């Protein structure tokens, strides 16, 4: 069996997410299995919802038999940061038609990070590359959800600490972003905002508040660039 250069590049790029999503998905599945429902519901959630924090939140809401309106509001608040991911991808969406909408559907933190930070390998179609990364990442997640829910609490987690692959991946991608941008200021701004919100904002809202603050800084900077341009 031969592996095409495209698939090889997709697998190599998404490999860290495999090691992150399998245990995280399994952790969700184990948690879900405690509710006593059939494991196929956990798989369905991985397929149709596909959101890490969102699915963890859902387990708590289902356990409390929460109403659908309450669930919708909680999910909107939790995931609202993703609105801003899309904002920065408008010009980089290489796919059209259903592939484009699937890629938007699959825009998790990890997929967004890989797509914005990994250069498309030479000779490979950008749209195909991004589409397959999105699909591979979701496959890892769905398999993790299913395994966790199926094996339930029989699953032994001798893999403590493996979830560190995701922060490690974000660290690597931060450095790649820096090599590409060659300007330290956005990174320092983000670090300052990050530490500030880490200290003062609750876990559930930290990322959203931090992204909103960053967005206001970028807007003010954009306005001042424009002012300077019109004054000259």
């Amino acid at each position, binding site marked *: 069996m031969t592996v095409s250069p495209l698939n090889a590049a997709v697998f190599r790029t998404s490999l860290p997410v495999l090691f992150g999503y399998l245990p995280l998905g399994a952790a969700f599945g184990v948690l879900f299995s405690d509710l006593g429902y059939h494991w196929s519901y956990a798989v369905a959630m991985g397929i149709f919802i596909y959101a890490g924090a969102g699915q963890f939140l859902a387990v708590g809401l289902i356990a409390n038999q929460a109403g*659908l309106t309450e669930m919708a509001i909680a999910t909107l608040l939790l995931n609202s940061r993703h609105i801003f991911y899309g904002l920065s991808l408008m010009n980089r969406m290489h796919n059209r038609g259903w592939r484009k909408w699937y890629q938007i559907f699959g825009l998790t933190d990890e997929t967004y990070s890989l797509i914005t930070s990994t250069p498309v390998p030479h000779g490979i179609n950008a749209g195909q590359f991004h589409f397959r990364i999105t699909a591979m990442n979701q496959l890892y997640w769905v398999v993790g959800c299913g395994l966790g829910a199926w094996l339930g609490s029989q699953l032994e987690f001798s893999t403590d600490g493996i979830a560190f692959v995701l922060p490690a991946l974000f660290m690597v991608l931060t450095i790649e972003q820096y090599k590409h941008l060659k300007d330290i200021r956005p990174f320092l701004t983000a670090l300052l905002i990050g530490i500030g919100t880490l200290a003062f904002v609750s876990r559930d809202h930290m990322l959203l508040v931090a992204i909103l603050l960053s967005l206001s800084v970028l807007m003010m900077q954009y306005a001042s660039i424009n002012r300077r341009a019109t004054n000259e």
Partner: protein
Amino acid sequence: MNNLTTFWYLTGVIAVLAGTTFLTRALPFLVLSRAANHPLLNHLGRLLPPIVMVLLVVYSFKNDAALSVSFLPELGCLALVAVLHLAFRQPLLSIVGGTAAYMTLVQMGLS
């Protein structure tokens, strides 16, 4: 709950969560597709990804879904990832090296 009630409740939950999650991801594409080439969106497209990357690193200190971290081991291992990556620029090596170190610390009970 009987099986049928369970089925409809969970199907409703999945439909609502799938819809709202997709909405948050699709909203800018639905609302702003005509403004895609606006210079402000170019500005955000260039600078938002690096900012989000840093924020995701910082956020992991608070994201205890699967990491039960105390501060120092994670900080130390992230520094190791950065050093490895600056030295060799092999993503997998940096990630595997840092994660192996972190797992060792956690399983020795240091975290």
